[in-house]
């Protein structure tokens, strides 16, 4: 059971790191507590809300990094590395499987309640505001579906479109729930999607030129199904996101897992409790079955406070329990207003050097441990809209760093 790198966590950064390490010739093992936070995402890749969140004049990728504060993860990683990481992702076959398209100055997609979200990358036929300006739209909603907010979306976008109407249709299998995953699986299991869409087509207004579906058109067979819909209707079809957990996030997850499992391994339900350290080097980690798992380098991509990589104590102390890393604690308990408290919680995290290596509270710098994603400090994914970007960049970058480290 010899593995080069242990990756703790199931975040997007964890899988990106494993795939990148595989490219560089190293084996890895992902030890995951549960699933990761990008299952809540709507499938779009957000790198930064350029217009709101940087102080430089340049509002394009990757130059926006110049305007960010110096301790921001993008700054630690460096403009060139961020550029390479994001380009690597969009050129890799994993994103090609979902035909991700990217927009260097951000484009706008629609959120589950109809608001504009600036995004760098959208998957195949994810709704883009460009597709709806001045068009005649029909939004499809399945009966009893309560996680797709067709009315809210319609209300929010009606100022941009020509006409809009909502069509209630029967779901493919009425013996199933109407939640997102049941609907997605029933689409996968449809023996003839053309028949199904043919019946819907009869009810769509002839004037409509764009049809918006909730993002549930199949988990594994998405590309086929949406193409079938477009062919049957002879209209453009797009997906708009549902309330999380969202199917586009799960689709991306499956593709990433499949890629990792080609040569490497994922342990689900594995809880890491401590690490064995000697001479500033981490030798192994110990899980809740008291198993000792050795490796030559370690990446902790376990999601920060949101997913449990970092814990908050009742007195407001924030701790990283495996290595007792130094934490940037922005004193969320001392804040007066909720939005300040939220920002303080989000921007607290593990302090690292510019290789993403942590420093322990006893001032030891471990040479073979790296932290990525939401574990890092000095960035706020909700306000910046940079969640996926920092994940991809930090995952890819830490894999490169490990490669240099192991090579020496």
């Amino acid at each position, binding site marked *: 059971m010899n593995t080069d790198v242990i990756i703790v966590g199931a975040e997007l950064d964890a899988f990106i790191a494993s795939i990148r390490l595989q490219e560089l010739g190293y084996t890895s093992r992902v030890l995951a507590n549960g699933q990761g936070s990008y299952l809540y995402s709507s499938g779009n890749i957000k790198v930064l809300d350029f217009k709101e969140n940087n102080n430089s004049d340049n509002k394009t990728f990757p130059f926006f990094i110049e305007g960010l504060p110096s301790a921001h993860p993008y700054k630690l990683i460096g403009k060139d590395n961020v550029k390479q990481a994001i380009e690597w992702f969009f050129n890799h076959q994993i994103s090609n499987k979902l035909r991700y398209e990217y927009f260097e100055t951000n484009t706008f997609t629609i959120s589950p309640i109809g608001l504009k979200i600036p995004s760098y990358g959208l998957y195949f036929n994810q709704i883009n505001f460009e597709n709806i300006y001045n068009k005649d739209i029909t939004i499809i909603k399945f009966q009893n579906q309560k996680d797709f907010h067709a009315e809210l979306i319609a209300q929010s976008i009606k100022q941009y479109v020509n006409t809009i109407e909502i069509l209630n249709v029967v779901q493919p299998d009425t013996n199933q729930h109407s939640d997102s*995953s049941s609907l997605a699986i029933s689409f996968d299991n449809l023996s003839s999607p053309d028949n199904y869409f043919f019946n819907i087509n009869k009810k769509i207004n002839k004037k409509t030129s764009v049809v918006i579906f909730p993002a549930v058109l199949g988990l594994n067979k998405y590309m086929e199904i949406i193409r079938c819909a477009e062919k049957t209707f002879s209209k453009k079809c797009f997906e708009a996101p549902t309330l*999380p957990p969202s199917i586009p996030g799960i689709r991306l997850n499956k593709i990433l897992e499949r890629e990792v499992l080609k040569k490497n391994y994922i342990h689900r339900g594995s809880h890491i409790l401590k690490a064995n350290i000697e001479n500033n080097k981490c030798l192994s980690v110990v899980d*809740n079955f008291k198993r000792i798992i050795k490796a030559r380098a370690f990446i902790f991509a376990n999601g920060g406070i949101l997913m449990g990589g970092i814990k908050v104590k009742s007195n407001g102390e924030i701790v990283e329990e495996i290595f007792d890393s130094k934490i940037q604690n922005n004193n969320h308990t001392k804040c007066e207003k909720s939005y300040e408290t939220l920002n303080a919680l989000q921007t607290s995290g593990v302090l690292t050097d510019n290789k993403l290596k942590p420093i322990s509270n006893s001032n030891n710098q471990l040479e073979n441990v790296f932290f990525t994603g939401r574990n890092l400090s000095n960035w706020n994914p909700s306000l910046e809209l940079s969640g996926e970007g920092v994940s991809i960049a930090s995952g890819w970058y830490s894999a490169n760093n490990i490669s240099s480290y192991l090579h020496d």
Partner: protein
Amino acid sequence: MIINSYQPTSEDILKSMDNCTKCGICNSYCPVSNVTNQFPGPKYSGPQTQRFRSLEDLVEISPELCNGCGVCTSVCPNEVAITDIITHAKSNLNNKNKKISFVQTLLNRPDTIGKLGNIFPALSNFILHNSFFRYFASQFFHLDSNAPLPNFHGKKFKKFLEKIKIDSNKKNIIYFSGCAVDNYDSEVGIAVIKLMSNLGYNVITNTDLCCSLPMLSSGEWDAAINRSKKLIKSLSRSLDLAEIIISTSTSCSLTIKKKYSAYLNFTDPKSAQISQSTKDICEYILEKHTDLLAKRMKPIDKKIFYHGPCQLRSHGIGQPAVELLRLIPKISLSLSEADCCGIGGTYGYVKGRNEISELIGRSLSEQIKFHKPDVILCDSETCRWNIEKNSGIKTLHPIQIILESLNV
């Protein structure tokens, strides 16, 4: 958190409902709620309703539809012991409101049925697979006529054990065979003895013991206590002679590792020692003998398809069988992406639930049809019987192929 501890008790399990953030990831992965709207999903049946069960008696039927696969717990990012909470509910309902059904009582005692059937195995097999009997059993006992029943193997395994000689130069290892190997799957047991002897062990086999998982899963806990105590007593005595207990059923080994403390509150030192000393056979071989195997394994000219049973996930060890199979030179191996084959132990044997099992198993059936393997491998007995019945392709335990590859 509490669940991370090695031996969580009933109280720990039920208190873990507080950790739930309602993220809904468990619902997205539940194989049962994704195919039928009769089961509300793990989030609802588990932590959500548990908050109210502790207040007053609810009359519930829906927890019964949980098939105990454990996928929900393995994807939960917040360490909620979801499956275990639902199983606790089943046990409470048994005690308070309902009596357990006759067919479930039968199914909960596979060791007793095995012993009885093996008095006249040929006759028993004739009756069991006779379509008139199956119809009769379906109408009067609610044993589904589609359920995958195995063949009684008589005393084949025990007779093989009688011929084994003890070699004092070899290291001892304990093999808990379980009711499946004792009565129906003697080939697997014989393969274990041959393989472990080849690797340098004296195998001490404890037969005629039942881990009582069917009773635990269906909530018949009072009866489970006696059986479990008998098992612990027997294995405890064996631990005077050896350090490790191996098992060829991922379900049985999971029960011994985790469920005795979680459901029956066995926290005495004897039970704890047995939990910690029990390993899945592939887990053990992977830890100790990869180098040896890598040298000696010969190519296998068969197209192999591996399906990891759902309960394997709860072990938190990844898929050790896959790691071992990949040591076979030029192996043609494809992996199942299905989370669950549907049978759920004894779940799919009950009339009315078999339809749900079929629906769950659709994804796996499709993958098998796509890959067209020569042989299918799976580490759990009822899963094997189910897969073989549905696909018509020979389904074995991974160690049978590993043994073949060693030309023993």
